[in-house]
């Protein structure tokens, strides 16, 4: 079993308080592990309020998602935090922008504006530079989990749970954004795993996940897949059996869509693994909810399926690492061997006794998905068994070949650059 947190950790309070409850209240029900019957449609029609929970295991009992700071981390504290970040030789990390509550996906405008989505903050931000001064403005407010953003032909696209919105002439209208055009709204209203990440291909079609509104169960019709929406507003399901994907990119070598996927919780601390997937053919099934990590039958929802019949991942990334935003490295600043590597922002665990993730991984892999191997690129935001100083969730390549990293815990964007 994994080591217990030290007494300073809030996580122990959770553990101890639950244990104390067992000792002092003598309520027999408290001794039982929580379980949910998620085998019927009634589960997702009326999901339990603690939908993110599942059938507890003894080793994971009492775990719950951590809540970040209410306000963005102050600059001085960010700079202290970054001193602890470990990078390969020659790389350097600095604060690029701060004061961006719950910063999520990033997208470049044609004229150098960085658009940034957010999680619960309901905002979309624009980071601009004028006369060498960088500033952050909130350009949209009141959207429902506008995590995903994309940009093409002057228009900003925002994913807000069940709507894909288009704001024309966005970069010229930062101070007074136009009313959006609803490009697409044939989407379920579930907020749980309904937050999206937009990946635009060369033709301007957008890929995103329609996640399942729970941890594990029979997916409601119209969820558990990757959808592709074209610029004319037509949508199609292109990848099946996907639980919750909040990151992806187009392989510059092939034009194929690759994506990260968060595996189910509440199986154990070390299973199943989160995944890096590649979509080679439309209609491919990636296994959820029947099989996980390519080879692990679900104990409850396998439904007699052979795991070998589903598309295996390019790479298993590890349990509860929470891979979110990812990018192929297409810049020329980093050493040549980084070209076309996949850089993945791992948001980090909540459903694991000792957290892992909260870092950036580098995956070297062939265009056909073969010979994949990963190594840690940047780490140090995980500061204790269950404590973060920050949580990377997206990566974008800048024009100069450096990368920017969004951190929704600290409300900041970092820049990682390289010089010989």
């Amino acid at each position: 079993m994994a080591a217990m947190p030290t007494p300073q950790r809030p996580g122990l309070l959770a553990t101890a308080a639950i244990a104390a409850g067992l000792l002092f209240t003598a309520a027999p029900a408290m001794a039982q592990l929580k379980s949910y019957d998620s085998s019927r449609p009634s589960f997702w029609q009326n999901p339990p309020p603690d939908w993110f929970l599942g059938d507890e295991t003894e080793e994971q009992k009492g775990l719950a998602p951590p809540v970040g700071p209410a306000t963005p981390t102050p600059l001085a504290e960010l700079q202290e935090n970054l001193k602890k970040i470990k990078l390969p030789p020659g790389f350097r990390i600095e604060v690029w922008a701060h004061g961006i509550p719950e910063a999520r996906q990033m997208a470049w405008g044609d004229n150098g504006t960085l658009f940034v989505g957010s999680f619960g903050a309901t905002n979309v931000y624009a980071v601009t530079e004028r006369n060498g001064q960088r500033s952050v403005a909130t350009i949209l407010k009141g959207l429902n989990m506008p995590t995903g953003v994309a940009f093409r032909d002057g228009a900003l696209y925002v994913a807000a749970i069940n709507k894909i919105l288009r704001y024309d002439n966005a970069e010229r209208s930062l101070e007074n954004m136009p009313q959006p055009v609803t490009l697409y709204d044939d989407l379920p209203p579930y907020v749980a795993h309904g937050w999206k990440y937009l990946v635009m291909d060369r033709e301007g079609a957008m890929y995103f996940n329609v996640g399942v509104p729970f941890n594990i169960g029979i997916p409601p019709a119209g969820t558990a897949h990757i959808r592709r929406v074209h610029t004319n507003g037509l949508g199609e399901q292109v990848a099946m059996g996907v639980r919750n994907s909040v990151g992806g990119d187009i392989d510059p070598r092939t034009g194929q869509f690759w994506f990260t996927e968060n595996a189910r919780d509440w199986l154990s601390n070390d299973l199943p693994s989160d995944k890096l997937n590649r979509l080679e053919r439309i209609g491919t099934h990636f296994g959820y909810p029947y099989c996980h990590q390519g080879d692990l039958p679900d104990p409850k929802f396998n439904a007699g399926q052979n795991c070998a019949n589903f598309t295996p991942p390019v790479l298993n990334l590890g349990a509860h690492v929470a891979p979110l935003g990812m990018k192929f490295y297409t810049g020329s600043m980093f050493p040549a061997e980084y070209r076309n590597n996949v850089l993945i922002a791992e948001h980090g665990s909540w459903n694991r006794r000792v957290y892992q993730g909260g870092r950036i991984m580098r995956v070297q892999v062939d265009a056909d998905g073969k010979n994949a191997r990963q190594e840690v690129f940047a780490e140090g935001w995980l500061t204790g068994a269950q404590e973060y100083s920050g949580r990377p969730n997206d990566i974008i390549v800048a024009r100069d070949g450096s990368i920017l990293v969004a951190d929704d815990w600290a409300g900041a964007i970092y820049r990682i650059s390289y010089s010989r």
Partner: protein
Amino acid sequence: MHPIRAALAAALCSLAVPAKAADIEAGRQRAQQCITCHGAEGITADPSIPSLAGQKERYLQWQLVFFRSGRRQNPVMNTLAAALSDEELRNLGAYFASLPRANPPAGAPDPALHARGKQAAARHRCAACHMDDYGGNQAAPAVAHQTRVYTAKALQDYRTAARPSVGVAAMNEVAGALSEEEIAALAVYLENPD
């Protein structure tokens, strides 16, 4: 001491220490506007207003963020919070979190209602986030020892989504399933769940 009790005591003590970034003394000075309604020691005399003493720091800060942005509506709080910087907001949370918690409100207990509230709390798994003593954890507030008037209003506001949940917490969804009777019973039970 039993090792689990010792660990619990240690954990409770360590949590009373504020995050390093916030300044309790600056928070105390900035709190002069707050104590008119929330009480000199963060313990209110008006049952419709919550006591803030000993409340979870992160919860207090999130609520101030919500008041400041207007996502939680209250004419007085929206005006006051609009003037707060991030730093002031952090300090206020740290200050009120550092004060000793209020005792359970005095009031005529209603054993039958109390028992129904206890059952409702178990049914809706309140302790999953608010902990078995309802003393809160992280951004999940201490809900024990608030007045029944305030708790009932809070639950009604969550039920109608008049105030937002924090992060992926699910208070709107939980409260959406509550009946009036359950709210009344929970409000009485949580005054003194010990």
